[in-house]
């Protein structure tokens, strides 16, 4: 199966719909050398902060740099694991609590590569992509999300 080697957009405006994810899974049914998929879905959590309760996260990014970095990470993960496919989607703009903001999808012949690659991708995306989450609170306030 061919590996995708060109920089591509990972950003979607607003939340990532469950239908998008279902469709993405279905798209792999023709790739019959795949034996395992691994999927990570990030969901916006209704955190209780001292300043108020989180209603949504408003995501912004330094898009050009983020896409360059995402491409670099993607190449590194493809080089490290025997993957068939890799897909990354990250939200921009407002995503309400309970909605999905990150979709990472890896596929390989055998499960281990897909699972390990997915895990490493999520960690690197959170640590290395210039993306910021502004947590909108029920008190008309906001706080800037901190990744732990």
């Amino acid at each position, binding site marked *: 199966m061919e590996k995708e080697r060109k920089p591509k957009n990972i950003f979607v405006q607003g939340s990532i719909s469950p239908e998008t994810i279902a469709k993405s899974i279905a798209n792999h049914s023709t790739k019959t050398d795949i034996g395992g998929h691994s999927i990570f879905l*990030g969901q916006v959590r209704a955190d209780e902060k001292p300043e108020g309760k989180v209603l949504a996260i408003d*995501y*912004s*990014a*330094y898009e*050009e*740099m*983020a896409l*360059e970095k995402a491409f670099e990470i993607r190449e590194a993960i493809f080089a490290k694991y025997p993957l068939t496919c890799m897909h990354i989607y*990250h939200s921009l703009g407002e995503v309400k609590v309970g909605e999905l*903001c*990150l979709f990472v999808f890896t596929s390989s012949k055998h499960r281990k590569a897909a699972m390990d690659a997915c895990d490493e991708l*999520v960690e690197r*995306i*959170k*640590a*290395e*992509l*210039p*993306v*910021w*989450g*502004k947590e909108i609170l029920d008190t008309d306030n906001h706080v*800037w*999300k*901190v*990744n732990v």
Partner: protein
Amino acid sequence: MPNTIHIKAFGMVAEKIGTTELVMDHYQDSEALLDALLVKFPALKTIKFSLAINKKLISNKQEIPENAEIALLPPFSGG
């Protein structure tokens, strides 16, 4: 064309300085620029941020090329 630096600000940094884009005179290196920024925007002293030159994160003092694009990046919090 005068030699300038284009600066983009993101997240909490943009909030602190009240703009997402500004143009400044050219500074020789990242340390000189940082000093100038802290004088211009004292509020930046209270937060943590990194510099990127032409979309590359820098960790040490670095030369600034002519007409560079600089970005002021608070700690990342994607995902």
